[in-house]
């Protein structure tokens, strides 16, 4: 089966709705399935569970919290990433805190799905953020799948999780397709995936950048052996897997399409520097500090991390596999 990323999200929602009558979906224009993941859900599950909402993000998010507190498993689809700013209070100060504040009486099994996070050509400053780092800082479970299979499996786990989870589906990952010959299944939150094994450098790539990292790793294969590490879940992060990878490579580059300061790139570098094996200074490739995406397409692209930067960062470790096959770093 040929599976697109968006279709995988749609399948995950469909399967979750079919499996558990407590699952329901809120969002704008989801009846029409405008963004893709909710296509045909209204026909199949009806307006009692697929709720087209007015433009009241704060209230319908709070409603979903109220529903989650009383036995439902709501999913909210947000049309644009910056809507998460609008409901930041609801997610971080309410949903995230209920369990502790009530001494374990309450749980908020709420999933927020953002199909099309990050830059979409021409959507400009207010629609192009990639704010996953904010949720990782707050401690809300945060997922950024890179492939259709992972999108399916992680979204299923997010919906099944008893805590709030935010799932970012990067716009640049939506066109990804996979030929799927296996059974789609839930993938546990908090487990990383090594897409490509390597021995010289670990590249931690987030979301759509996994595909860029794989391409660059292939390209540089004659020069150095790159391990491509996809955390999949940014919070909780699979630190054990990262430590194991760095045990092998000792070198680290993070490529992450969010703002530099206090981003997930910072967290990975910091934790590695504190606790893990590093034989050379780690590097990160990110958006600039405080980035706002300018409209003009060339400027928009200039603000996002790209392959040239990754290539340069990898080569900056110096020649690790000279043509003769010796390895001067060992």
């Amino acid at each position, binding site marked *: 089966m040929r599976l697109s990323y968006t279709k995988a999200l749609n399948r995950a929602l469909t399967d979750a709705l079919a499996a558990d009558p*407590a699952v*329901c979906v809120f969002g704008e224009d989801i009846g029409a399935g405008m963004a893709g993941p909710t296509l045909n859900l209204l026909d199949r599950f009806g307006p*009692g*569970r697929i709720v087209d*909402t*007015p433009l*009241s993000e*704060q*209230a*319908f*998010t*709070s*409603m*979903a*919290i*109220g*529903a*989650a*507190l*009383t*036995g*439902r498993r709501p999913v909210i689809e947000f049309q644009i990433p910056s809507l998460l700013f609008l409901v930041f*209070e*609801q997610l971080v*100060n*309410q949903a995230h805190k*209920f*369990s*502790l*504040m*009530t*001494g*374990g*009486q*309450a*749980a*908020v*099994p709420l999933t927020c799905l953002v199909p099309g996070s990050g830059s979409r050509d021409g959507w400009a400053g207010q629609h192009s953020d990639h704010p996953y780092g904010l949720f990782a800082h707050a*401690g809300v479970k945060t997922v950024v799948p890179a492939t259709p299979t992972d999108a399916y499996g992680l979204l299923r786990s997010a919906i099944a*999780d*008893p*805590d709030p989870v935010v799932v970012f589906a990067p716009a640049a990952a939506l066109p990804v397709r996979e030929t799927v010959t296996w059974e789609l299944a839930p993938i546990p939150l*908090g487990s990383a995936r090594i897409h490509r094994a390597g021995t010289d450098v670990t590249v931690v790539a987030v979301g759509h950048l996994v595909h860029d990292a794989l391409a660059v790793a292939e390209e540089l294969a004659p020069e150095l052996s790159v391990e491509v590490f996809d955390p999949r879940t940014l919070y*909780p992060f699979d*630190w054990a897997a990262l430590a194991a990878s760095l045990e092998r490579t000792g070198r680290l580059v993070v490529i992450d399409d969010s703002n530099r300061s206090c981003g997930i790139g910072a967290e990975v570098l910091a934790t590695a520097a*504190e*606790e893990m094996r590093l034989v050379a200074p780690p590097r990160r490739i990110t958006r600039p500090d405080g980035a706002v995406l300018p409209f003009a397409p060339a400027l928009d692209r200039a603000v996002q991390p790209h392959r040239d930067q990754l290539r340069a960062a990898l080569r900056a470790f110096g020649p690790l596999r000279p043509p003769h096959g010796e390895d001067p770093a060992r």
Partner: protein
Amino acid sequence: MLRLVRGFEELALGLVRSGEITGGIHPYIGQEAVAVGVCAALRPQDRITSTHRGHGHVLAKGADPARLLAELLGRTGGLNRGRGGSMHAADFSLGILGANGMVGAGGAIAVGAAWSARQAGEDRVAVAFFGDGALNQGVLLESLNLAAMWRLPVLFVCENNGYATTLPAATAVAGSATGRAAAFGIPAAEVDGMDTEAVRSAAAAAVERAAAGGGPGFLECRTYRFEGHHTMERLMKLHYRTPEEVADWRALDPLPRAAALLPPGLAAELDASVEQQLGAAREFALASEHPSPERALEHLYADGLRPRAGHRG
């Protein structure tokens, strides 16, 4: 119940003064008729969301005063095992979805609970308590629209005590509370919030209608807090209310008003039983254990995920 709520607050005030309750409280004294009147109209399966000034709602919906007091004292025997304190007291087993530290936040949560009940095919009404200050909070206004549009079984109870901290409602709320609700198509009534029976009967009508599928209701209860906004206010010189105004409202105290309706002798009997109950509550709460610091982050995640510590070793 009026007496219990009043007595509880007086007890708590004493424990704030003696330093046993950390951080102070927002006393409910004066507003008891609202919580008691509304909750008297509710059925056990109904749910409520409350506010920063929540003790009255929590008690009136049936929470154990001993465990509420233990919560204010941060003890393991507290409703929230000492993790929530005054502003987050909750008892989910009784449909008390919690006091809330953010003004207006409970409104839409109650709407969600109402939606949830309908989706589950359960006959439950949800009640949102909130103050006049919350009338200007966007999320609350949004939630009026959703409740109306979807005809949800929810009752909005605005306790208009005339002030949001120091800000008079008269200089903060354009139009009227009931006018706003009505503009969203929600039947709205103004009630004397110092009269328990008036509140109860208005609430009962709204709950009945909501339960029967008639959609949301809205009550504006005109009331007054006899104490400061927060116990900390005693340490400040604030002049936002005149002593005369306070005295005028104190004259409307719901307690004597309710007592006057009782058969002779019963009032004293009730007083005695409340005193006994609160004495026991005090004893229970003060004897309850302090939670141990190693367990500070227990319950952070419902799935038991243990977060990384803030330091190593």
